[in-house]
């Protein structure tokens, strides 16, 4: 019986589940699709309600995963196939080629400096650029470069090879091929996280058409000291500091007309946090939050919202905008909305609008569901075995779920559920080992 567990997803939930298991002596394979672990939390500037710097509290855990003798980190890798049952799953994992020898790369970044190809940086939500050879962010774990073959001149046109020439460690290896490996595990934990809904299909918000209408995750990268503007919070259209910023809640979520009917659970409070950050950066900037219901449901959250109102002067407006229009010359915006308190139609001018879009389950969940016979709900979240009494279990014994992929939740809830999934996996190891003995 293998005393080991597969964890899928290297965000905060996957990291926590891995560390709990590894610290009790269980071998963990932590599979992450992208080149670095860290997930969404790595993209955030600060966290609510304590305003802790997100990467600063996450980085030690990421590095603990890298250094832990019981954790095998498999980044830039994907799960291909799962066979077997609780106690003895066999998992085929595809290691995608980085075209960089991870043993030799020191993460010095010389290749990235010299690479001539610029690609929108996914980590910065496409605001800044990265190179075709890149590390997603400065604290990436592992700190190993990856060549993006889709954009690399050598792979697309057969020219360049600059990275190979400049690499002081001779780590570039264009010949690398995908590798498959099989691992045996007693249990599997899924922690695939979320994606953001792209509201460019909802024409009333102007996202994609108006430069100064951005998404909340783009905001996080804009205000972050390690982001593309070095933490200068400015308008994408002209690089000027905005004087009025409006946050719009429930963009595509809580929608009855076909987008996403559910509530993403975190937006009211992260918008509050983002508003506080603006007021701290630029105390003269006016900040409004347009919301339907203020959902400050976690520990200390209502107190946080009260603080935003009283100490930071953030203005909360019960309203849902009917439309946003752009001034073609100044690129400033006008929001038309119905004030729910008075029932009157009103207008509000803004230099920037931050949309808080529905946070939705990953497309990949379908693939995993198929590979492991798991049930998904109507939205694509993994379905709990029993929504009331077994929230972490799936319909397949030995396979557990945690974090946002089970249902919308914030960081502490994801961390708690991840530890919970680790407990269930530990139970599975003990029980299946005993059964095998008997």
């Amino acid at each position, binding site marked *: 019986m293998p005393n080991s567990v597969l964890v899928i997803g290297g965000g*905060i939930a996957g990291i*926590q589940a891995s560390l*709990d298991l590894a610290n*009790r002596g269980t071998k963990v394979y932590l599979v992450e699709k992208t080149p670095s672990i860290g997930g969404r939390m790595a993209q955030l500037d600060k966290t609510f*309600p*304590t305003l*802790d710097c997100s990467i600063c*509290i996450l*980085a*030690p855990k990421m*590095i*603990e995963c890298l250094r832990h003798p019981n954790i095998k980190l498999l980044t830039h890798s994907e799960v291909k196939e799962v066979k077997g049952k609780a106690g003895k799953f066999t998992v085929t994992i595809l290691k995608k080629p980085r075209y960089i020898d991870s043993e030799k790369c*020191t*993460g010095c970044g010389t290749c990235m400096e010299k690479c001539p190809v610029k690609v929108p940086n996914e980590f910065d939500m496409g605001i800044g650029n990265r190179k075709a050879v890149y590390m997603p962010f*400065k*604290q990436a774990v592992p*700190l190993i470069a990856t060549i993006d073959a889709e954009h690399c001149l050598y792979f697309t046109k057969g020219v360049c090879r600059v990275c190979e020439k400049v690499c002081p460690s001779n780590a570039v290896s264009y010949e690398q091929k995908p590798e498959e490996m099989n691992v045996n595990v007693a249990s599997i934990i899924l922690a695939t996280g979320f994606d953001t809904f792209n509201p460019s299909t909802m024409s009333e918000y102007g996202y994609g058409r108006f430069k100064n209408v951005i998404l909340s995750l783009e905001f996080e990268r804009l205000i972050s*000291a*390690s982001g593309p503007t*070095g*933490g200068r919070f400015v308008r994408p259209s002209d690089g000027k500091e905005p004087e009025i910023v409006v946050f719009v809640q429930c963009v595509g979520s809580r929608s*009855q007309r076909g987008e996403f009917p*559910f*509530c993403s*659970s975190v937006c009211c409070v992260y918008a509050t946090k983002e508003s506080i950050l603006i007021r701290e950066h630029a105390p003269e900037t006016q900040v409004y939050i347009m919301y339907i*219901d203020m*959902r400050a*449901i*976690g*520990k200390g*959250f*209502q*107190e946080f919202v*009260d603080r935003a109102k009283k100490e930071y002067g953030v203005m909360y407006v*019960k309203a849902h905008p009917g439309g946003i229009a752009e001034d073609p010359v100044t690129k400033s915006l006008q929001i038309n909305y119905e004030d*729910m*308190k*008075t*029932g009157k139609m009103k207008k509000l001018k803004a230099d920037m609008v931050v949309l808080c879009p529905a946070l939705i389950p990953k497309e990949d969940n379908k693939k995993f569901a198929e590979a492991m016979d798991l049930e998904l*709900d109507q*939205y694509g979240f993994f379905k709990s075995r029993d*929504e*009331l*009494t*077994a*929230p972490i279990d799936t319909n397949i014994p030995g396979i557990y779920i945690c974090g946002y992929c089970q*249902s*919308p939740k914030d*960081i502490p*809830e994801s*961390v*708690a559920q*991840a*530890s*919970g*999934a680790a*407990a*269930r996996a*530990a*139970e599975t190891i003990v029980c299946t080992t005993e059964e095998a003995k008997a």
Partner: protein
Amino acid sequence: MKEDNEPRIGVFVCHCGVNIGSVVNVPEVVEYAKTLPNVTYAEGNLYMCSSEGLSKIKEAIKKYNLNRVVVASCTPRTHEPLFRSACEEAELNKYLFHMANIREQCSWVHSKEPKKATEKAKETVRMAVAKAALLEPQTEPEIDVQPSALVIGGGVAGMSAALSLANQKFKVHLVEKENELGGKLLELYKLYPNDRHSSEVLEEFVQAVRSNVNIDVYTSSTVKRSEGFIGNFKATINHEGKDETLDIGTIIVATGANVLKPHNMYHYGECKNVLTQLELEKLMKEKKLGKPKNVVIIQCVGAREEKEGGRNYCSRICCAVAIKNALHIKELVPEAEVSILYRDMQTYGKDFEEYYRQARENFVQFIRYDVENPPEVFTRPDGKLAVRVHDILVNATIELDADLVVLSTPLVQQEEAEELSKILKVPLGADRFFFEAHVKLRPVDFATDGIFVCGTAHSPKTIAESIAQAYAAASRAGIPMAVKRVRTEAITAFVEESKCTGCGTCIKLCPYNAIEKDERGIARVNDVLCKGCGVCAASCPEKAISMRHFSDAQVLAEATAALGGTQNERV
């Protein structure tokens, strides 16, 4: 590490991207560090905490034969363990590492004054170097861990935690103050989302707990005393009037919450037809609801506002509970009109929105009121109860007949929690719920090792959320019990026996009961209990007590350096 006492210090200064580097002139600080006494090597790095930065430290230890390391970067609270383990990997005792915080204490607080921030960073590094020169290696004692857990509270959270630990093959002692298991589930009617009777769900849990050989259940029992430390607690339980002491490895607090009794609000207590949500559940459970024609449910009663007797937090579950009970009333009394008066509808997550829609389809009326203009419960001249409310969505004041007024009040901490928090030496927060070690990343740990929290004792949450958190506590508590050993604090007090007069001052002051007199009448410190707070060392009239890693000499060297001295003047 080589056995030579001549300090050879390496100083590593972090840019922290732009966090430090854009304010503090890091190269200047590095150059300055090189001029300090005992500094053999100094360098700067964009991120010292990156794997590259850590390798640099390890390489330098080897290459320059360093025997002390100083990192000038961020806060030791998050990053010290990381740098310490890098030192250990290079075979340097981790207590020979010292950290200077030039981010929180320099670049962040003096972001508008880069020159002064740089000067302060230099001074901070000078202090750290002065202390580092006097650092000594320390060891962390290892102790055995009892593979048995004490779970306090026999509600759904406590039972779930107990079951998980028992399935991990640990012994569990489950203590419940009432004479039966179940907690609040005993009082509920039917549960979301599948409308199963609470009693039926509860029965399954109790069956599983009762039939598990690894769980000992103590009903009508309370925890009277707890002594000891992680792995080796001695907990005294009062079980049906008799005291019993148990050897315990870890403790889980799952004592649950109560519902606020809304005295002086909406005529509760004066008028028998004004109930709390929990009292309504009980009525339905006991089939005593009768045939109310009009039911008015008021949300946020004593919640989300500064009000005497109320709470300022959101109790999270009340909106979904109100919807659930509105639908149950409709089911039991199909002709009943049910209205929910709310401020913000907290139907968060993936399923509650759908539930909310279902309630609207079933003609539950939702009326939104404003906190400044709350509803009013009054008696009409004919003696009948009614509610007046200003509906902000239609901007009109309306009156509703009410055979029954149901008040949604927040979950609040149990009265006994105060005492339990003292017994276990774990804190309560401003909201009086148990306060975890870190709000974001350690949601079920207490700062005290070996003690954990879950369920509504931590904050209001649903049954499913309580169960998930209970498993989390079972994971965290399971770790030391699975490993069977833990390392304890090295920074402890020690007594210079020749100076001790046995006056007992330290014994009286120690908040952890870690000091006792030995057979000679001399103070003796229990290293495992000692948390290194330093109260004893500060108060010993004979200066017989010193702190490991915070010796007078080390602290004075730092202070001397702060005041401009660059030499380590031995005190």
